[in-house]
């Protein structure tokens, strides 16, 4: 189980030497307990303490990395059941299944879809993370040929091999030397030979069973065979079973530190109907899947999945912020209205959404208030007349609009006088208090 800050403190040198960058050993211990720093920063810690702390600070779900380089995907390391308790750590990976019965040109087309899947959203680059080649043919030559095509077309993309056939697995692994693929996998019938292959080719091992009990026994057996990095599959395919097994796995790992199930989970979401597959995958995103296998990656589907993953894996303790700048809503002209608000993402989303709804193009000046909403930022002294004046003067607002009128949120109407004093040449107008009043407000103005 995880140690408390005080328990960790007892194992530290207690010299308060500050070499770790923290003012005291206790402060460092507290950060270690919250997993916000690493023990390596302490140059004087004893080997005994290192070992004890290392074991205790090992996350209940083992970290496993698939692939190498910039596109490597890190999975696991989760510590909680609910995202409001603490940030979910490593976002789940999406992998497109490519069957080895497809023609070479079809395989290439699918690989291209994966390579082209990147979308930028709220400053993050999101994409389909991996390719899962499945040995539908059960033929070693077809499988290795498919894997060869995939690695030739997308050498950087992490690969998952889906086969229960050791001969096919080995033929394919030869094309993935030093690339840390995921070999899925091992079951009760082939555990020894798959374990040998995973070790020989430095692959992580996917482990499949048909219930949690036999799965636990299988991972323990594989561990004694020397396999460390595993990704587990309880055999759940229906949404209800995925939710149940993933919940029981996460609970056992987090609450009981039950090591045989302390591994990232793989979920097979493939369905005939793509939109329904999206909902099965969404269930996995919300409920603890670490790798989700998809049969198709239409762009609309990716956008929804990437966005859900981003939402679920957001840090609940850090207000989401958007970049400080003047945003264009619709296609504004130099005569379009200019509104201002704070950079709390929810505030931005709601205000910009209502401006879009109004169908009146405009500019939205978003000011950095450390992610606070309008009233909170005002109360905290971050959304004041002088700070707004400074922001507007230094921004490119004056070149974006010909007029000199700034519309402020109704909740801070009190600022209008002071702001007119400080922002010379500008007229300050007071907008509605709530964002849902914006469409009527803007439409009313544009007809004047």
């Amino acid at each position, binding site marked *: 189980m995880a140690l408390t800050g005080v328990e960790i403190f007892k194992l530290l040198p207690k010299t308060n030497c500050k070499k770790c960058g923290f003012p005291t050993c206790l402060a460092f211990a507290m950060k270690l307990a919250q997993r916000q720093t690493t023990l390596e920063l302490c140059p004087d810690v004893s080997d005994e303490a290192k070992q004890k702390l290392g074991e205790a600070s090992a996350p209940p779900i083992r970290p496993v990395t698939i692939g190498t380089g910039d596109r490597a995907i890190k999975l696991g390391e989760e510590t909680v059941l*609910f*995202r*409001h308790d603490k940030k979910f750590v490593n976002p789940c990976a999406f992998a497109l299944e490519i069957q080895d019965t497809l023609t070479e040109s079809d395989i290439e087309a699918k690989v291209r879809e994966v390579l082209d899947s*990147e*979308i930028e*959203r709220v400053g993050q680059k999101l994409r389909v993370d991996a390719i899962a080649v499945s040995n539908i043919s059960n033929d070693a030559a077809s499988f290795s040929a498919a894997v060869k095509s995939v690695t030739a077309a997308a050498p950087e993309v992490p690969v998952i091999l889906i086969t229960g056939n050791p001969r096919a697995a080995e033929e394919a692994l030869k094309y993935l030397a030093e690339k840390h693929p995921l070999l899925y996998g091992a079951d009760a019938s082939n555990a020894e030979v798959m374990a040998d292959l995973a070790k020989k080719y430095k692959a992580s091992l996917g482990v499949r069973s048909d219930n*949690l*009990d036999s*799965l*636990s*026994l299988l991972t*323990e057996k594989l561990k004694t065979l020397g396999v460390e990095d595993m990704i587990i599959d309880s055999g759940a395919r229906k*949404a*209800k079973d995925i*939710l*149940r097994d993933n*919940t*029981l796995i996460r*609970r*056992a790992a987090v*609450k*009981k530190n*039950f090591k*045989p*199930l302390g591994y990232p989970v793989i979920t097979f979401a493939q369905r005939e*109907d793509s*939109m*329904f597959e*999206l*909902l*099965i995958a*969404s*269930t996995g995103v*919300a*409920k603890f899947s670490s790798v989700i296998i998809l049969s198709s990656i*239409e*762009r*609309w*589907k*990716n*956008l*929804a*999945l990437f*966005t*859900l993953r*981003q*939402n*679920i894996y*957001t840090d*609940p303790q850090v207000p989401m912020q958007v970049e400080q700048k003047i945003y264009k809503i619709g296609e504004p002209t130099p005569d379009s209205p200019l509104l201002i608000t704070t950079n709390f*993402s*929810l505030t931005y*989303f*709601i205000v910009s*959404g209502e401006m*879009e*709804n109004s169908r009146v193009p405009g500019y939205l000046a978003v000011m950095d208030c450390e992610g606070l909403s309008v009233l909170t930022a005002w109360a905290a002294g971050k959304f004041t007349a002088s700070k707004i004046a400074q922001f507007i003067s230094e921004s490119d607002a004056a070149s974006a609009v010909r007029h000199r009128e700034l519309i402020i949120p109704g909740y801070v109407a009190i600022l209008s006088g002071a702001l007119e004093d400080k922002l010379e040449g500008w007229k300050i107008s007071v907008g509605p208090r709530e964002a*849902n009043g914006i*469409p*009527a407000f803007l439409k009313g103005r544009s007809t004047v």
Partner: protein
Amino acid sequence: MAFTPLKETYPGKVYTVEIGKGEKAVTFAGENVLPFHTFEGASPNRPVIAYEIQDMPPDEWPDTVRKPYSGISSDPVSWARFCQDSLGAKVIALRLVSTHPDRLDRSPDEAAKTVSDVLAAIDIPLIILGSNHAEKDASVLVAAAGAAKDSNCIIGKAQEANYKTIAAAAMANNHKLIAMSELDINLSKQLNILITQMGFEKDRLIIDPMCSALGYGLEYTYSVMERIRLAALAQNDATMQQPILGDIGMYVWKVKEAQAVETSVSGWGALEERGISWEAVTAASMLIAGAELLIMWHPEAVQKVESLIDELY
């Protein structure tokens, strides 16, 4: 090491709520476990999806979601019948948007007439929603609640600014009531306490913690719902044991992802599928977080989410 599943049992339970009358009455909630955790406790009723209709033509709805209702949505009665008879709706949610002062500013009496007409045309339960204008809703919903007396509807939404009159009207006319607060578990709890202090029975309330669309604050709604459910079950907090509403459609269909044509946003894919999937994924997330009642717009999104419920429940 043999695996022993760690099952959670809780002292608390969510109230069961029944709406409507007769054979087509609908019951939801009543579980003593987290959403779809049927492996460790009782979850006697599956979540329910209501189709939203409005009391004026949905001119502001994006094409994708206006299309399935073209030809029938100019009149709330034909719209309601279509949802019930052709789409197989189990519940209808009538939103009286025309009463908003910025829309048509229709009177409470006109709203009451619409409610009576719709009720006369359907035999499934009805949810009656105002235009989300706190002041106007107070008068509109009082009239609407009276027009629907004893039909066992859900009236909403009561907010901090107007709950007294709306709760009194729901009570006097034997309806259930939606209590809405803005994305904060404490505000939600506070409002429930205020309403029950008026003598409103706590098993007739429905919590709306405020919905948000995928990508637009969904994580806030998601976590508030999870925390409300944990308060209800683990802490046995009777002020949080009401079913949760996810008012999905109105939040989803105004976001850019549901509206922007493919040519204007590179890489976002087909508009129609994008809009429908945005609503379906938002709805699915809210169900997994704890909502037992959803209000949705697009028939195809409803169907997909019903199929998911079939598998999850």
